[in-house]
């Protein structure tokens, strides 16, 4: 029993260290261009954690998560810019609405498995994407929707990268903490049980169908909040940010970071957000690198960075140790 309690303590220490890292990171950037990039790392981490709950823990793929992100962004934008609603209120209402939508479509969608689930979520994502493009009067169509106000709190307007960094990372850190709690609870064990053996989970009395739908809805709610934050930070949204490619990018973040690891989601989000910046010198080659990365990671590092890097380091240390012994 002591061991399990020390496990929780261990998790807490990890979280505090991570929080400190995030809080002080902007000092290293000195307010430069990287700060802006890391605002997006924050949003992407939020999205990756949301998808990881579904994909990494419950083992259910979604190739349409960009839709929930987009619905959050557009609905927040429309409610605040077109209808002048309070942005915070709008964010909450929109998240609730998106969650409800996900809950309803979750029942038929999550009845499907494997490739069929992938295709159904993909289809949903594309339908929503087409609606963003076509509902011109509401969304501004392909040219986008502008004039979304910044968020503000107690007279402070979040209108700089610096302020937005702390706003978004504040939300992301809270989400990470809550997610860590969740995955180490009765619900989290139920989710992981579904992933490992659905039939055994059912025999143990886990209501598999309902739990899947619940986590799908939760994941959609978090994605919607990420969308609202994105809209208020950018003050402009356009459909291209919410298409099939971005859904795939999210799945890639989760897989590259490590399925079933909350911190892995951060690693995956950070890598995939920084990658285009690093590859900017190569211009169009980024899509090729991206495809290769996806294939190689799935083939050779199926546990993701979070498990693959320690294993790799271990192997190198072992080999160099063995090598030096052989030399001696």
């Amino acid at each position, binding site marked *: *029993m002591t*061991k*399990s309690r020390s496990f929780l303590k261990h998790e807490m220490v990890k979280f505090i260290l991570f929080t400190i890292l995030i809080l002080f990171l902007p000092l290293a950037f000195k307010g430069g261009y990287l700060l802006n990039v890391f605002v997006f790392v924050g949003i992407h981490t939020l999205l990756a954690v949301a998808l990881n709950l579904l994909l990494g823990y419950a083992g259910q793929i979604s190739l349409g998560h960009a839709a929930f992100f987009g619905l959050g962004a557009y609905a927040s934008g429309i409610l605040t810019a077109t209808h002048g609603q309070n942005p915070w209120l709008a964010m909450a209402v929109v998240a609730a609405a998106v969650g409800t939508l996900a809950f309803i479509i979750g029942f038929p969608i999550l009845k499907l498995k494997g490739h069929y689930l992938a295709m159904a979520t993909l289809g949903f994502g594309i339908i929503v994407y087409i609606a963003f493009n076509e509902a011109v009067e509401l969304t501004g169509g392909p040219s986008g929707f502008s004039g979304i106000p910044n968020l503000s709190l107690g007279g402070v307007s979040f209108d700089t990268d610096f302020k937005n960094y702390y706003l978004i990372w504040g939300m992301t850190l809270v989400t990470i903490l*809550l*997610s860590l*709690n*969740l995955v180490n*609870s*009765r*619900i*989290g*064990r*139920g989710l*992981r*049980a579904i*992933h*490992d*053996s659905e*039939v*055994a*989970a*059912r*025999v*143990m*009395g*886990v*209501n*598999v169908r309902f739990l899947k739908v*619940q*986590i799908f809805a*939760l994941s959609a709610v978090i994605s919607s909040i990420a969308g609202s934050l994105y809209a208020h930070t950018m003050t402009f949204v356009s459909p291209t940010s919410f298409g099939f490619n971005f859904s795939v990018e999210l799945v890639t973040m989760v897989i590259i970071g490590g399925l*079933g690891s909350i911190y892995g989601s951060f690693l995956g989000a950070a890598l995939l957000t920084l990658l285009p910046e690093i590859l900017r010198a190569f211009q169009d080659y980024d899509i090729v690198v991206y495809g290769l990365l996806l294939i190689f990671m799935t083939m050779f590092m199926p546990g993701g960075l979070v498990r693959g890097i320690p294993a790799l380091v271990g192997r190198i240390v072992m080999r160099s140790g063995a090598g030096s012994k052989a030399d001696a």
Partner: protein
Amino acid sequence: MLEVQGITQRFGGVTALEDVSFRVAAGAITGIIGPNGAGKTTLFNIVTGIYTPTSGTVHLQGKNVSRFAPERLASLGMVRTFQNIELFGRMTVLENVMVGLHTKGKSGILASSLRLPWQVAEERRFRERAYHWLEFTGITDLADHEAGSLPFGKGRLLEIARAMALEPKVILMDEPAAGLNSRETLELARLIQKIRESGVTVALVEHDMELVMDICDAIVVLNLGRKLAQGTPREIQENPEVISAYLGEG
């Protein structure tokens, strides 16, 4: 306790079970035996709600539970183990048993993510109960191991611990001795008797005749999808039809 009536199961044109009926008496150990292909595992899958039978009914404590989903049967006190052990491989041994306690808790997403005080208390209670069942099966020292890395014999014990955590009225074991060595089989026999003594009804499908004759109070023999005989171990051993069915196979 458990009453199976007129179960028939067809897969396409193949009849796997035909009009099988028997009772599992409360507080007893009932063995279901039969040559390969007799339909034993199919029968288990029907009783535990994994397959829907073509016709026939299953009653649990007088209640008609035919066509109930496995999760509903679990909350009514029926649980099973699997022939090829179905563990949650990426979770620890302790966590596996805690999944067995799933129906005993009520914390949902909100309470869990906020770690509300009563949820924390529930977790503590879960952990204590889980350790109890690990002790019951004698694998406490493995609590923090990953279940997927356990040797087969220990995995089987974990599966039993996990099932017992549900505090079932009846536990169905699908070939619990398969893949075990003779020492492990002996331990298993003792464990099954201990389970019966704790007031849980046991039904098991098994190939190991020695084990079945040793611990079972009643035996049902299936052959080619039909019930061949039912009785005490002694009656079964002396039944000429049973003997010929087995000799015919061997």
